[in-house]
């Protein structure tokens, strides 16, 4: 049975891998640059929803001993389960490509060597980490490396933000001039889409089952969900505030990662650029690990294959082959020259569209006695899920028109 520390480590890696990654760093920086503190509320809102959803995936795994994908097929049947799985496969493929692109961008900042050249080496390292690594090593390793992201908070504080406007922006929308409204709401939508990533729940519930959680893990599950996700949120707010201090007064709107890379220089001087490059590469690597595994988990669990990160690849042939193929296919866009940031924004809009379909099962499964017994959702939990589905549906309907209206960059 896992010790409390290791269990919380699962929460932190899920958070760092899923929270701070190429999409969230980009959207937080854009939000800070264009609207100062006016969008912090969307990060807070997304985080609250995420905390509830992550706690639920952990609870489902601990009580029913089923992962989400497994439970969805069993409760709703193959025909229903197929559609979210297919949609997620396509989205995950694009997001994985974007994350590997993020690692490549980080390495480009560090070395000056063009991102495309890094794609194959990074894919190989990623594949190798999953191939020979066990869940423990991967969880702990990426957690520890991910603590590096504290630099964003350190930098943000060093840049002397105005605390009152910051708090105001955290509590409620601070509306911009009318001609920037579309851009404001589109950025809010992107932040929500980047924050509530379905692959995080699949990763978390699979880890919980593989680690053999039971009902005794439930209190720690709650702590992990809150602490882990809040940690990630704090780091994202750090990026936003640092961007608000550096870019907003100079009228800089973010459209390329080369601009974001300046973010730590005022606070860390000559250490700013290498720390940024390193932090970006590490965060995106963690996300890539999570997405590749989450995708392979979802497929294997839906089809009833043997799965698991702790066993040797030969003992889990179909599972290992799935993430292998996914990783090497996902680098095709970046090798063809697609801009990683543009791929990121596109895949996040797509994630937002798939979100309602991914979250709906939570409402039903977590109220089903057969799966979670007496540990059903309370009224607060259900309200949050219903609200999140409602919000996700609006995002799905609205993201495309907003982009057309000129909200996107």
């Amino acid at each position, binding site marked *: 049975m896992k010790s409390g520390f290791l269990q919380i480590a699962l929460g932190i890696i899920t958070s760092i891998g899923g929270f701070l990654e190429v999409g969230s760093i980009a959207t937080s920086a854009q939000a800070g640059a264009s609207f100062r503190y006016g969008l912090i509320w969307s990060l807070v809102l997304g985080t609250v929803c995420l905390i509830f959803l992550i706690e639920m995936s952990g609870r489902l795994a601990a009580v029913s001993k089923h992962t989400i994908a497994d439970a969805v097929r069993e409760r709703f049947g193959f025909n229903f389960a197929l559609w979210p799985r297919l949609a997620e496969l396509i989205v995950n493929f694009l997001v994985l490509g974007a994350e590997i692109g993020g690692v490549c961008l980080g390495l480009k900042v560090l070395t000056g060597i063009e991102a495309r050249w890094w794609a194959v080496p990074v894919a190989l390292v990623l594949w190798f980490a999953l191939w020979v690594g066990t869940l423990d090593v991967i969880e702990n390793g990426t957690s520890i490396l991910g603590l590096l992201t504290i630099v964003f908070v350190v930098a943000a504080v060093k840049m002397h933000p105005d605390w009152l406007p910051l708090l105001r922006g955290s509590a409620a929308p601070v509306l911009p001039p009318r001609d920037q*409204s579309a851009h404001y709401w589109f950025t809010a939508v992107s932040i929500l889409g980047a924050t509530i990533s379905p692959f995080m729940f699949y990763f978390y519930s699979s880890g919980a089952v593989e680690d053999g959680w039971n009902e005794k893990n439930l209190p720690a599950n709650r702590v992990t969900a809150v602490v882990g996700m809040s940690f990630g949120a704090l780091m994202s707010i750090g990026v936003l505030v640092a961007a608000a201090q550096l870019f907003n007064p*100079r009228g*800089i*709107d973010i459209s*390329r990662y*080369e601009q974001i*890379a300046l973010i730590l*220089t005022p606070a860390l*001087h000559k250490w700013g650029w290498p720390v940024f490059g390193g932090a970006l590469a590490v965060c995106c690597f963690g996300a890539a690990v999570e997405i590749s595994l989450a995708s392979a988990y979802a497929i294997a669990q839906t089809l009833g294959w043997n799965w698991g990160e702790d066993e040797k690849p030969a003992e889990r042939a179909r599972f290992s082959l799935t993430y292998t193929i996914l990783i090497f296919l996902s680098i095709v866009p970046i090798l063809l020259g697609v801009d990683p940031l543009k791929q990121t924004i596109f895949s996040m809009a797509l994630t937002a569209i798939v979100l309602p379909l991914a979250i709906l099962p939570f409402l039903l499964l977590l109220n089903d006695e057969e799966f979670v017994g007496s540990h059903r959702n309370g009224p607060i939990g259900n309200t949050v899920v219903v609200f999140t589905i409602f919000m996700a549906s609006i995002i799905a309907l*609205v993201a495309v028109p907003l982009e057309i209206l000129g909200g996107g960059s």
Partner: protein
Amino acid sequence: MRFAAVLIALLLAACGTKQTPDQREKKTVQSWEASLALAGDAWTRGELPKHFVRNAADAAVEELSKNAKGHEAARAIALAHQLEEAVERDDRAAAGRIAIDLEEASR
């Protein structure tokens, strides 16, 4: 479905006017001028390596060429090239001057 349509209509109304293409172009140019000013200035203080400024200048030229056509854009692109050349030559004084030019242009 009707509810969704009403919501979208409200949202479209709330979003108000869009920036004109001219305004947006001007913003893009000013944004990149300010970005390069930051990068150039940081380089003169030894806080950034050459390849960083080179990448930033290349990105600026790429984005400006794609999204902006006017006279200001052309001037910004020219300054970006000058900055890159100054950095390659290790000419701190020149880079410093170009950074100041860029910063003034961006206001």
